[in-house]
């Protein structure tokens, strides 16, 4: 396929200009920021701010959730183990010597809420599913699939940084420009 100058192929096979992509990236960035803000403000109650990339140190914990169906991609949350321990304290409103399983579980739950929050803001149609989080630990420098990351955001909390990566690879029925309309939802929200 030969594309006109200034245009590039989208994940779903459509064609978008660089400006289209810029607008889309801005929209996605705002949606990720909003999803992260909601988690920090409700469940963590921790001051934070968007920061530039900070070199990671020590053991990193990664939680990854995959999207499938109307879109194909993933959302990854990555944080240093010591920061993850602090996040676990905040989630459980208790300081304790949590074991690795508990800390990994907390990072997976944060990833779940951020990915779910992004998906809700994105306005996905009813054919998109998200997986349960897959959590892994690795030393710095073992960042997997770095080239696949379409968008990466960093959130500083004191000396620690939470990294969120969103990568979408394919969409169906959306003309290639990954976008959907919000779906109506029943109003039996309990909390």
């Amino acid at each position: 396929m030969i594309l006109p100058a200034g245009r590039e192929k989208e994940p779903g096979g459509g064609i978008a200009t660089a400006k289209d992509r810029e607008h889309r990236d801005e929209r996605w960035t705002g949606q990720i920021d909003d999803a992260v803000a909601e988690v920090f403000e409700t469940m963590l109650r921790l001051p934070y701010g968007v920061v530039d990339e900070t070199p990671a140190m020590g053991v990193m914990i990664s939680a990854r959730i995959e999207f499938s169906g109307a879109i194909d991609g993933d959302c990854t949350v990555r944080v240093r183990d010591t920061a993850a321990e602090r996040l676990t304290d905040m989630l459980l409103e208790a300081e304790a010597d949590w074991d690795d399983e508990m800390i990994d579980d907390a990072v997976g739950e944060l990833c779940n809420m951020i990915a779910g929050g992004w998906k809700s803001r994105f306005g996905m149609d009813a054919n998109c599913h998200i997986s349960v989080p897959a959590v892994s630990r690795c030393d710095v420098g073992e960042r997997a699939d770095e080239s696949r990351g379409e968008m990466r955001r960093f959130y500083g909390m004191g000396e620690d940084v939470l990294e969120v990566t969103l990568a979408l690879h394919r969409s169906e029925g959306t003309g290639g420009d990954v976008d959907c309309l919000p779906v109506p939802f029943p109003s039996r929200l309990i909390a």
Partner: protein
Amino acid sequence: MPVRVLIVDDSIVMRMVLERAIRHACPKISETTYAADGAEALATLEQAAARGESFDLILSDIHMPVMDGLEFLLEVQRRKLAPRVPIVMITAETGSPEVLRAMEAGAMGYILKPFTLEQLQMGIGALLQSAA
């Protein structure tokens, strides 16, 4: 008589968060039981039924390994394991197709993550009052 709640969630952290909210919303009178997935929860309900016991409220996550929340709900209804027991789904997605299907299948409502402890306590408190 204690109010009995079954929490079905693969996340230990989320089970602890939910239990804390229940204890705050219904101090001293609530009794919580855990299951890590739908299959474990079905076994718990069957064992309770064999003892002639029941639960007053079931809180179930949607996304779980082994058996997810929607399958669990449908199986509970098919086997008539918890008639008249309100089942509330827990989700992080507003437009989740699984939650939409759960609502259609008779779930009483849903809890949307993230939430503040106060919001959760208020919601669970109202549920427990109506269940008691």
